[in-house]
């Protein structure tokens, strides 16, 4: 009862403020901006309670995103990469001569990609292993040397490059104890356990810093929306 009363009073106050902003500001004349603003408010209404407006906006979002995704993949992956080169621009015919390898370079990956659909059948589901093996193998092959270079070598080199200072010492202790925490071959008991404990402290401090940075990111998203609502929609700020 108390909540209902508070809700009604709150809604009336918000309505008054909203009308005031409409009068004072320069609301957008574009229907699309209005639709975007209303959908934004529908989603934000979830913060109070799940309601019919949120449900509508959520279902609309999920549906539109699926449709949009299909059209993007159809256009960019299928039409651009398979249909156009095979039937329209015919990239395998150069100076009137037919070249086999460019044709196979389009046909074979397309067929392998189609094998991904075999997962939906019962008997031929094992065929999906072929394209997955290709993708995993290729991406592992390309990325392993680069990952070694970028992640292991560069970072080990930088950790090694110590100066006689407290921060270098802290960094080395942090790196080693964190690596020890992720050592799974022995139980965390005795000296190993104590080292792992120091490691988890370093990990948690790092996560805390990362969390703090992320709070900034989330508030920035809210600020972006506020800017849209107040500047683009209602026009109450300059």
């Amino acid at each position, binding site marked *: 009862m108390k909540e209902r009363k508070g809700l009604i009073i709150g809604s009336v106050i918000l309505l008054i403020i909203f009308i005031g902003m409409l009068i004072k500001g320069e609301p957008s004349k574009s229907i699309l901006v209005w639709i975007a603003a209303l959908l934004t408010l529908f989603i934000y209404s979830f913060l109070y309670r799940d309601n019919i407006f949120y449900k509508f906006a959520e279902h609309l979002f999920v549906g539109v995103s699926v449709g949009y995704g299909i059209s993007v993949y159809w256009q960019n992956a299928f039409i651009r990469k398979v249909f156009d080169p095979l039937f329209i621009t015919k990239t395998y015919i150069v100076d009137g001569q037919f070249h086999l390898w460019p044709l196979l370079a389009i046909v074979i990956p397309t067929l392998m990609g189609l094998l991904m659909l075999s997962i939906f059948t019962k008997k031929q589901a094992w065929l999906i292993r072929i394209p997955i093996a290709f993708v995993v193998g290729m991406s592992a092959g390309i990325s392993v040397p680069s990952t070694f270079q970028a992640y292991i070598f560069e970072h080990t080199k930088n950790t090694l490059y110590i100066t006689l200072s407290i921060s270098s010492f802290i960094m080395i202790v942090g790196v080693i104890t964190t690596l020890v925490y992720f050592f799974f071959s022995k139980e965390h008991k005795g000296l190993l356990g104590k080292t792992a404990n120091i490691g988890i402290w370093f990990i948690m401090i790092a996560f805390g810093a990362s969390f703090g940075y*992320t*709070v900034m990111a989330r508030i920035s998203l809210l600020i972006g929306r506020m800017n849209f609502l*107040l500047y683009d929609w209602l026009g109450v700020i300059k």
Partner: protein
Amino acid sequence: MGFWEKVMRLDRRWVFFLIALAVLIPFLKPLRLPISVTKPVKDIFDEVEKVPPEGPPLLIGTDYAPSTAPELDPMLYALLRHCFATKRRVMLVALYPQGAGMAQAGLDNVLPEFPEVKSGMDYVFLGYQPGIGSVILQMGEEIRRVFPTDAYGVSLDSLPMMEYIHNYDDIAFMMDLSGSSVPMLWVMYAGARYEQRIGVGTTAVSAAQYYPFLNTGQFKGMLGGLKGAAEYEKLIKKKGYTEARKVATIGMDAQSIAHLVILFLIIIGNIAFFASKSHRKKTKLTSG
């Protein structure tokens, strides 16, 4: 129920309401808090200043979707304004499908301020190609292999700006704007293999994980989150390159107040936690 117990059970909707007020009020009543420029942002600014005017271009990767636009759009606008105002050439590429839309929106937003800037002469928008890693690798050999035309369907060979530009050797500096892990791929492929100088503009979430790469020099500088964008806007305004509305700077007041509110809530939440814990202990001792 004691005061701290009540605080522990505070309805989360009051917290949402406080945060909403903390963000809304600075928009309506700007505080104009000062913004100090940090080294990673200054490094990016200096790298762009090193790009020779009317020479090899700055390559900007718009590898983000609308969900991260509030933080990354201001960076894109600021970079474009910096380059167009100082006659530096720009090449835009998108490795996300929505990134092409973000780049076009950025151009649409900034170009009206620079009527003399022309596509094909002062900037080239390559558009989107699927493949991310393979696109980055192929651009290291020959850009035309993966982008035979620009986003508007014009052949790259017919664009005056592209006459001497074939691969990363002909690009002065690369700036990747992304909220995901795409900058890592730029570092791994373009940076490690082709020794392209790379800077990153990213959301605050990802900024924390890129600091090690900043220290190793794999990134020459970083614009981190809305604050990074605001600092960059301050630098270009200081040089007199633009008088446009500074979206990120306007948001920083709201950011600062919201952070103070959150700090306050964290502190009283922790006090409430420990106070109610000791109160429960006392109650147990006296009743037990």
